[in-house]
């Protein structure tokens, strides 16, 4: 009965009810948007316990700051902005400047790199080893570089969209994107140098 009743109510009605003090109306919003929140958080955190902590933090912040939501834009956009900024804060809080050496690569990752060197087109992008390798490379980037590479290169968002999500200005996004690509190439060069030079 409760869930059916919630589903009949629109998002705007649910938000208005929460703002009036009916905290239970927040639950259907959590149910509806948690998959999006978890997919976003998993881009930045690897361990599942960390993912849950960050997702929980996002929802608690969303509840606290719901009064700042302006209904001109969809709730999902507002929530995603909050999610990205919380992920960025988590990246900054847990960032360790640890460099991965080539010796730390797993055997499938090494094989994938070897294949790429001998026959670049034979190294498939959908291989698990490639996925692990990019995750390893992203972990070595600074928080801002990781955020901008993820949003712009991997998720394919425009500079304006990245600016809206992060709260940075458009010129700042451009500068950070340029630096992020340079940082990424530096990490790749280091791995390549260890193995092939």
């Amino acid at each position, binding site marked *: 009965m409760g869930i059916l009743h919630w589903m009949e109510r629109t998002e705007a009605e649910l938000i208005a009810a929460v703002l009036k003090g009916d905290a239970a109306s927040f639950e259907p919003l959590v149910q509806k948007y*948690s998959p999006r929140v978890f997919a976003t958080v998993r881009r930045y955190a690897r361990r599942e316990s960390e993912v849950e902590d960050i997702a929980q933090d996002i929802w608690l912040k969303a509840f606290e700051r719901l009064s700042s939501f302006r209904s001109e834009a969809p709730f999902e956009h507002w929530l995603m902005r909050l999610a990205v900024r919380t992920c960025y804060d988590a990246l900054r809080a847990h960032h360790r400047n640890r460099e991965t050496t080539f010796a730390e690569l797993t055997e499938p990752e090494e094989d994938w790199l070897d294949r*790429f060197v001998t026959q670049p087109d034979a190294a498939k992008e959908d291989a698990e080893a490639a996925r692990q*390798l990019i995750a390893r490379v992203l972990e070595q980037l600074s928080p801002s570089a990781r955020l901008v590479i993820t949003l712009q290169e991997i998720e394919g968002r425009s500079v304006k969209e990245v600016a809206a999500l992060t709260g940075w200005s458009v010129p700042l996004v451009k500068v950070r994107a340029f630096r992020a690509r340079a940082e990424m190439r530096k990490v790749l060069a280091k791995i390549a140098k260890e193995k092939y030079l």
Partner: protein
Amino acid sequence: MNLAKLEQKLVAAARANPTSDRVPYAFEKRIMARLAARPVVDDWALWARALWRAAAPCAAIMLLLGAWSFFAPPTSASANDVSQQLEQTLLAAVDQEQPIDLTR
């Protein structure tokens, strides 16, 4: 090794593997429990507590000032002069105001 191509390949690999959107079991219940367990912030209670705490220092200051004005030695006419000077200064503009001739 072509680093630009390697970068492209790895970014493509990340794109080809979207992250899972799986939500842990009863996650929303956990969030609601956390929200319910949070202490309720009552603005009125906060104000009442702050004002109640401020009451004692305010009373002490009031008593001190009362005692000071009661026990302080009577001052000469200079205080009176100051009040008159202040009144003159404040009303100087009114005193100098010219009546407006409405017939013109």
